[in-house]
């Protein structure tokens, strides 16, 4: 790396920050999606399947129509459809939401690989990005400051959702349903319907997160596209204490941690590559062990969510 050498450790820092922005976008969308789902009182482990389905359908739409933004919307709708399936099945009694999520994970990825076979070769138009680094003569700085459009949408969305969950009627209803089935029923809300809607909204966001993978970074469709970002959503949300704004910070942290290994490689540190890559998981487990207690449930957790009891 001749052009990376002159920046040295600064290059690593810049690469980690740039990577944080780039890699964090799918994390941001799935964690916001899972937050909406869990605020309603359910856990959807099927976001992994939804993410892959979103990546495939978004890419396919962009290939066929040439419109990447249409791909994003179709990805969201595909995600909603799968999430609706999760929501409806979990409305039945004696059905375990975690198990349904895992079956949806297998079904969604299987379906995406099945339908996505024809799209492995053609290339789709990519989503746009802002060039905020044009002032710099360093290519590393320029590439780190290529801010993709979905990232900006995601950040705005995080703040909107945080505000809406706190102040708007739907936010209050969703939180009531998530905290106490009895209270929500007594107030006359259809608990199952609200939870299903929370799950569907979460599925839309996760589908959009998937389209980022195929339409921006890495910007291609293949069967090894996702590295478990959807399954990690559940852990991210715990880390973020079910708060959309924390979801944003946590996504940046996870994105940065994921970018650390490749960044260190550019300055010649190649050992422990995989361990750096697993840093988010170590971090989350450590935090979980630190903040858990046998005496009380996790702070901020919706009362009806199975994993907080």
């Amino acid at each position, binding site marked *: 790396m001749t052009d990376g050498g002159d920046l040295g450790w600064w290059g690593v820092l810049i690469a980690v920050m740039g990577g944080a922005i780039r890699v964090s976008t799918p994390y941001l969308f799935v964690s916001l999606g899972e937050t909406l789902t869990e605020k309603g009182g359910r856990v959807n482990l099927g976001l992994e399947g939804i993410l892959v389905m979103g990546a495939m359908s978004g890419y396919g739409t962009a290939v066929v129509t040439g419109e990447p933004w249409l791909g994003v919307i179709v990805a969201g709708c595909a995600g909603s459809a799968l999430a609706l399936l999760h929501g409806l099945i979990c409305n039945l009694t004696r059905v375990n939401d975690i198990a349904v999520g895992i*079956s949806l994970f297998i079904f969604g990825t299987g379906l995406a690989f099945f339908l996505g076979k024809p799209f492995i070769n053609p290339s789709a138009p990519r989503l746009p990005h802002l060039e905020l680094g044009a002032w710099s003569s360093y290519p590393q700085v320029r590439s780190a400051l290529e801010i993709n459009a979905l990232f900006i949408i995601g950040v705005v969305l995080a703040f909107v959702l945080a505000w809406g969950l706190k102040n708007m009627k739907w936010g209050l209803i969703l939180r009531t349903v998530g905290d106490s089935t009895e209270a929500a029923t007594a107030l006359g809300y259809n608990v199952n319907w609200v939870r299903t809607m929370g799950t569907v909204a979460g599925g839309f966001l996760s589908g959009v997160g998937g389209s980022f993978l195929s339409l921006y970074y890495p910007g291609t469709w293949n069967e090894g596209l996702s590295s478990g970002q959807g399954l990690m959503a*559940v*852990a991210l949300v715990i880390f973020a204490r079910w708060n959309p704004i924390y979801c944003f910070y946590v996504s940046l942290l996870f994105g940065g941690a994921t970018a650390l290994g490749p960044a260190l490689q550019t300055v010649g540190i190649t050992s422990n590559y995989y361990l750096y890559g697993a840093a988010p998981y170590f971090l989350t487990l450590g935090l*979980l062990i630190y903040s*858990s207690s046998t005496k009380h449930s996790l702070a901020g957790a919706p009362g009806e969510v199975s994993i907080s009891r």
Partner: protein
Amino acid sequence: MFGSTFNNGLEAVVINAAALILTLAGFGVFVALFGHNPLDVFYILYLGAFATQLSIENTLTQSAPLMLTALCTAIPARAGLLVIGGEGALVVGGVATVLVGVHLGHLPPWAGVLIMGLAGSIAGGLWIGAAGALRQYRGVNETIATLLMNYIAIAIMSHLVSGPIRDFDQVLKTSSWSIPESLMVSTVPGLDVHWGLAVGVATCVILYVIMRQTTFGFGVDILGGNPRAAQMAGLPINRMVLVCCFIGGAGAGLAGTMEIIAVHGFASESLVVGFGYAGILIAFLARQNPAAIIIVAILVGGISASGGLMQRRFDLPDATAAVLQGMLFVMVLASNTAYGRFKIFQLKAN
């Protein structure tokens, strides 16, 4: 007592059969949408899974690791825990097998295999046991902990395989040192299926007997059914949870051992192919019953086994088997809601 057990069993069979038929109907519609005759596809499904000796052997080979990883969810579930760490425990078991196995070339094969099996199951058992301990003594949710530990296990393996235990003579694939050729196990006599099948079936049967016939198994069922009652009865809850987690993890670890000593001979990314996640669903489909796991695992293995034939005959993508499996899992889980709704199965219970 016998009547009620029989009726419960019958109820499960009827409901699962109905779910299976609905799944096949849904899958038939799915393939029809792609211009294939559903009946032809079903025939190929049967042909590829159960029709010939070759396909049955293929099916049994596919089902062997699933039986063992399913135990990783099923046994802790009987004590009321939802463990989804089979994938990680399998990887840990496989790595432990390699680490121990490479030093055992001088031993007679039976001793080497025994020690590797112990190493794999103890490693997997401690791995999931740790999650059980975190839950009992620290209140850490075991579902999330085991999910995270899957990724940690895979990362540790990737780390070891990429450097510390890498076999640099293998140029095609990043993989670990291989265990000595003399310690690789062959196939079950009379069948072209590796010994993992026998180990899986035997483990499931033994655990079925333990969970059904011993005081320990009875205590675990009380704990899983009503933790308060278990506490009031003075059962050693912490110890029981730890033992269940250890047994479950040991099952998945043993699956890792069998993958190493019967299939690969070395640790690599090939260990991470979703056996753990499929195992979770098999445990749910079998309603956490170790004996039923054997049957469900063979059924699911059959779907995987017929995937190749479906691909060749109809030019369907290889993900077709995953679509069918996913549909089956979704349908059977949804059918859980039907239990207790049909009076006919309750009559003799009273």
